[in-house]
């Protein structure tokens, strides 16, 4: 299955965590700015033949990421169409936090949304705002499937983190919070430092299994959403 990971966060962390040269790459924000830019010039192949990247790009900046929702919707739609036309079957858009500006426009073009949520009290308090934001976007994109919330940076050895996770599971309907939770683990820092996917590190088996579990849940929820719709 041909998959494209797109860095739609102006911070550019996807590219920066993988290659130093990615800072020089044209990317998603350049596509938004330049109607004449071909997607083929943005796609960066990886060692996996079915997996490619698009960096955030040179035009990315924090100002572009915020601002008025809707400004980049038409170009975001063009981007999605172009991705499909280039034969990609799955396009993963990594957006900045917050449901406004480019992030809102991107989600308004997507089929499904997965919401990572840090397992800490402050993050859980922001959940109502997040839900309201998704409702607004769903007005624009009624087809949007909300796959659910994934707890991230969970620290089982920290009472506050553990209780925040528990509180979120109590707060949201059953099925909205993924069973799989991403733990806070030094191995992610190591992977980031080396610029490698966590799964290929020597001690990365457990981390890899977590993401395999997440993938499996996503597939199940996605299939279920298609059946129900």
């Amino acid at each position, binding site marked *: 299955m041909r998959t494209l990971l797109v860095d739609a966060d102006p911070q550019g962390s996807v590219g920066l965590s993988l290659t130093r040269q990615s800072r020089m790459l044209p990317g998603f924000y350049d596509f938004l700015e330049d109607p004449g830019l071909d997607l083929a010039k943005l796609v960066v192949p990886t060692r996996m033949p079915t997996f490619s990247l698009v960096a955030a790009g040179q035009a990315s900046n924090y100002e572009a990421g915020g601002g008025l929702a809707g400004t980049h919707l038409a170009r975001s739609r063009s981007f999605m169409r172009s991705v499909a036309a280039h034969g990609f079957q799955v396009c993963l858009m990594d957006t900045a936090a917050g449901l406004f500006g480019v992030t809102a426009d991107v989600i308004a073009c997507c089929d499904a949304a997965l919401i990572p949520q840090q397992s800490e009290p402050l993050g*859980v308090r922001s*959940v109502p705002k997040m839900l309201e934001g998704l409702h607004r976007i769903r007005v624009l994109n009624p087809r949007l499937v909300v796959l659910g919330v994934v707890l991230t940076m969970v620290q089982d050895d920290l009472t506050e983190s553990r209780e925040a996770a528990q*509180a979120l599971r109590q*707060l949201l309907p059953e099925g909205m919070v993924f069973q799989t939770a991403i733990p806070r683990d030094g191995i992610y820092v190591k992977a980031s430092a080396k610029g490698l996917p966590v799964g290929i590190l020597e001690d990365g088996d457990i981390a890899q299994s977590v993401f395999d579990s997440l993938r499996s849940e996503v597939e199940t929820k996605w299939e279920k959403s298609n059946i129900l719709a």
Partner: protein
Amino acid sequence: MGKIEHSRLMDPIESWVDPQEVKRLAEALMNPVARANAPSDDATYSKHFVGFAEARDHTQLPANNGRAPSQTVPVGAQGDRSQQLKNFREALPSPIPYKGFFALQSEAQVIYDDGEHQHLYFVARDWIKTRNSSSHQHVQLRIGSSDFLEMISCQTHDGIVVLAFIVSRALASDELARITRSLPTFLSGSST
């Protein structure tokens, strides 16, 4: 510090959220919209408004933009304001290709709507938030193949009022000027 009961949310969260409201919002999101009823990918410009093509920002409008005349009378209850805005809308010059109108106060509260434009409120609110940090007085957004949303910020006695017009073509500068010039007269309670 009391022991946390499993049946209750933890204290650092409980006081910040309304569990019933959160559950209601979340459950609504978990219910898929029937694909058959949802707009197709090409329904970008359906009546449900699903797209902008461009946004233009103008920082300068006429010098008397929204400035209330000296003989104005105090604006009272919101009902008065609503009626005043209704009068204002009905008196819009006919060449202006207006299809709908709503207005918000600077706090983003909707104070008038001549139709059902709830789906556009968040756009206006986003702009209000954005323009608080800038001097922009007008923004124009394409919301359909032949629909534009023109938002104009006007200073009034009671603070900023944002006028939002749904129009079938982009408004020219002189039309914007006429609109902004006429508003204070209606908000003052006098007629033109």
